[in-house]
């Protein structure tokens, strides 16, 4: 058993383990299982081995050691990596090799982490099953006939399949938390602006946020501490110091006010999910937390608002993929307009096209007020719901997703049903507040169930403390997928 990053650092220090040895073990594991899991688009074997050598030298006295030095991690293929192909799960970026690192990647490298590869994802992070990748299907390590969730499905599956210690995903409406729930791992979406978006390929700029996917809560706290912080290259990043997120772990939940939003406990939730979350609420109560019934009255509009705001921003963000400067170009010599049309027709998948069309419509003259503007106003009301509710509670507990992982192909023909996979994660994305998903049980079929803990703006510490208390008191996170 591998234990936490903290324990690995202990073993590094005791010379029981080297970064190189650990990295090689993970590369072997990827060789063994990734043909069936499909968590990676690119495995950076040479770069990873080199980075592990550097890390080992650092630990032998050549440089500063951080909590991540020598630790093999993967990153979602949405992050630009200097010299390493970056596809964002799309055909249109096939062959694109960025000349720059995303800030998140730069921070990982500077901390001495070993980046072992780039994870599969729904094309441009649009999807809840990773089935929208242009490259491959990622399977759920707990049941290879099922999806890993999405869009950070490759990241969650790689951690669940033991192909790396941790991964960095991104979350726009639940893309870290829902796959974490599906794969039985921990996924944290920080406050919007806490982690720089520079070099992270944009889907919906006002919602996108990077965060860690890990095997336990402590690791999530360690990773967040490394990737968070103000970035002069990112105008919406928050210019406040980054606290030590591991410091408060172990503080327990006694006296913590735990809000239960009535609007989240609806008929459509799977019975086993409902029971597991109810048991988790009871755990908090038993540990001395104060359970408070709260209301988030505008919850029912969240999915609609999200699919207007996110698609509108996406329609604009994806305009740059025109075949002129990088990535794929389809040019049959029949003029500029045809080049644009053919490049984008062949480069984008069906879901991406659907969202570009939705977003273009929502921003069109004559419809802007009724759609985008109205959606922005309702978004402000959703945010206000949370502001008011957090006067009565410190955290909120909800299911992460209404069901456990579904079958591959089950929802691909019905986008609307697929969109409802994110019904419990979308509101907190719209409000820009932090939320974590962690395992809280298994279905009778042996599929993981996720518990979501939502916190107030910039209060990741309390979210992590509550998650840590739950994890410490339960054994769900110790179960591993058998491959």
């Amino acid at each position, binding site marked *: 058993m591998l234990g936490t990053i903290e324990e690995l650092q202990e073993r590094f220090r005791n010379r029981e383990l080297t970064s190189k040895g650990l990295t090689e073990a993970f590369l072997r594991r990827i060789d063994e299982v990734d043909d069936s899991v499909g968590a990676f688009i690119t495995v950076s074997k040479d770069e990873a081995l080199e980075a592990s050598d550097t890390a080992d030298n650092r630990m032998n006295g050549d440089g500063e050691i951080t909590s991540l030095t020598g630790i093999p991690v993967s990153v979602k293929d949405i992050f630009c990596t200097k010299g390493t192909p970056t596809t964002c799960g799309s055909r249109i970026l096939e062959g694109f090799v*960025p*000349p720059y690192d995303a800030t998140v990647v730069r921070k990982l490298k500077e901390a001495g982490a070993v980046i072992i590869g780039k994870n599969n994802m729904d094309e441009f992070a649009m999807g809840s099953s990773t089935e929208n990748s242009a490259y491959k299907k990622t399977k759920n390590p707990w049941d290879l006939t099922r999806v890993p969730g999405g869009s950070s499905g490759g990241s969650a599956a790689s951690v669940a399949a033991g192909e790396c210690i941790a991964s960095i995903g991104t979350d726009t409406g639940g893309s870290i938390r829902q796959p974490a729930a599906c794969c039985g791992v921990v996924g944290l979406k920080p406050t919007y602006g806490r982690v720089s978006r520079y*070099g992270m390929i944009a889907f919906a700029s006002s919602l996108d946020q990077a965060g860690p996917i890990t095997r336990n809560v402590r690791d999530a706290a360690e990773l967040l501490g490394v990737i968070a912080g103000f970035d002069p*290259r990112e105008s919406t990043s928050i210019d406040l110091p980054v606290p030590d997120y591991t410091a408060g772990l172990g503080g327990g939940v006694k006296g913590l006010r735990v809000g239960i939003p009535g609007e989240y406990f609806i008929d459509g939730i799977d019975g086993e999910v409902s029971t597991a979350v109810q048991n988790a609420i009871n755990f908090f109560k038993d540990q001395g937390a104060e359970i408070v019934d709260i209301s988030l009255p505008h919850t029912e509009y969240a999915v609609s608002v999200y699919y207007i705001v996110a698609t509108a921003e996406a329609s604009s963000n994806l305009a*740059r993929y025109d075949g002129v*400067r990088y990535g794929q170009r389809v040019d049959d010599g029949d003029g500029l307009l045809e080049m644009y049309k053919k490049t984008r027709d062949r480069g984008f998948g069906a879901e991406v096209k659907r969202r570009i069309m939705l977003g273009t419509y929502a921003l069109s*003259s004559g419809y*802007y007020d009724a759609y985008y503007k109205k959606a922005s106003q309702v978004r402000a009301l959703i945010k206000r719901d949370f502001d008011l509710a957090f006067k009565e509670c410190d955290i909120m507990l909800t299911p992460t997703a209404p069901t456990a992982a579904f079958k591959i192909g089950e929802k691909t023909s019905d986008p609307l049903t697929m969109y409802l996979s994110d019904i419990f994660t979308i509101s907190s994305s719209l409000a820009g507040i932090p939320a974590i998903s962690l395992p809280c049980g298994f279905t009778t079929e042996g599929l993981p169930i996720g518990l979501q803990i939502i916190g107030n703006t910039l209060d990741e510490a309390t979210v992590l403390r509550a998650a840590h208390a739950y994890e410490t008191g339960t054994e769900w996170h110790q179960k591993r997928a058998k491959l």
Partner: protein
Amino acid sequence: MNYEPVIGLEVHVQLKTESKLFCGCSTKYGAGPNSQVCPVCLGMPGVLPVLNRRAVEYAVMMGLATGSRINHESVFARKNYFYPDLPKGYQISQYEEPLVEDGHMDIEVDAATKRIGITRIHMEEDAGKLNHGATAEEAGSSFVDLNRTCVPLIEIVSEPDIRTPDEASAYLKAIHDIVVYLGISDGNMDEGSFRCDANVSVRPVGQEEFGTRTEMKNINSFKFVKDAISYEIDRQIEAIEDGEKIVQETRLWDSQRGVTVSMRSKEEAHDYRYFPEPDLMPLVVTEEMISDLKDSLPELPAAKKVRFIEEYNLPPYDAGVLTSERPLADYYEETVKLAGDAKVASNWIMGELLRLLNEENRSIEDCPVGPEALTELIGMIKKGAISNKVGKDVFEEMYKSKKSAEAVVKEKGLTQISDTGELSGAIDKVLSANPDEVERFRGGETKLMGFFVGQTMKATRGQGNPGLINKLLKEKLGG
């Protein structure tokens, strides 16, 4: 029927910042294609804009110089359209909430002052440039140069208050003078740093509502703005007289043929799908920043002109010429300070200096004769070392050779003759060579004095001191 034109201008001004609006690349003109680019201005995946504060300051300064309201909070917006010179597929601009609103500009046409309203001034980034294949093998290809992409611009939108092509030209000139005065733009029209779009419509005199307008894009000279608007007014009136309807459309001024041609109609117009730019926070400008900038504003042309009239006792026309450009005004004031004579300095600058500069289309900044050199020349004339007339030749030589006045005078032996004996000899020769005139003068034809002075000057190759010659002549002829 009589028609009244209604004209509004949208002026695009490139701001003179070192780096681009949203990245650190240089804004210098004329570098090799795509040599001043980075992932941000190339619109590569995942990159984000960071606002150049200096550009904001420049835009605020223009707002203050036009008596506008500076909005403490304004919002950047994306203007979406596809074109190969637009790397992101959208231009970052301002739309519903611009930085500056409700200003004005006073212009002078036919000696009357008229106030033109300014609706708004907003900030935006420029697009790149397409170079269409020039050689046979390149025919049909276009080359994208993104050096200009993301260079900061302000767009100054006027109210439809302009009524004649002359007013339009005067307004454009006034805006140009101010941006150059403020030092926020080089105003270079050939390099595209200063260009405008004109909206033109006509209506029967007395009618309240506006006619259908057309928009002419990318006019880059004061002459073209006049020509294009004149042509368009005539075209529209003719069309209406012929019973045609004016189509709302974008037209292009073809300066070669002197006509406007249709580019695209309203039906073909882009839907830009503006929405607030989510990658930038609302732009906040504090009261403190505004008042600091207000304090730093230089004296503007209109105020300077008034001061020149009062302080230097200049005629309004002269004051207008001398204040039309800040370097010229500075040159003048420097000369006055050194030479101590406002009228003489003005005469020299308005006369010889501007004549020579204009002949070569040179700017005052390239003038080979600086205020110190001019002052030296003025001093020599005042002292009587040379005559005013010789001074003009000396100036021209100074301008050509960059030599000092003294060096020129010495080299050419132009020193004024103030030696009474030498002059007396010359006068005696003149008088004995013209006995008839002497006779007639003594007979009362005193206006012949000018003739004798002229002859004596000629005899001394223009170097004789005219005052002294006059005095000696009077003595000799009167005696």
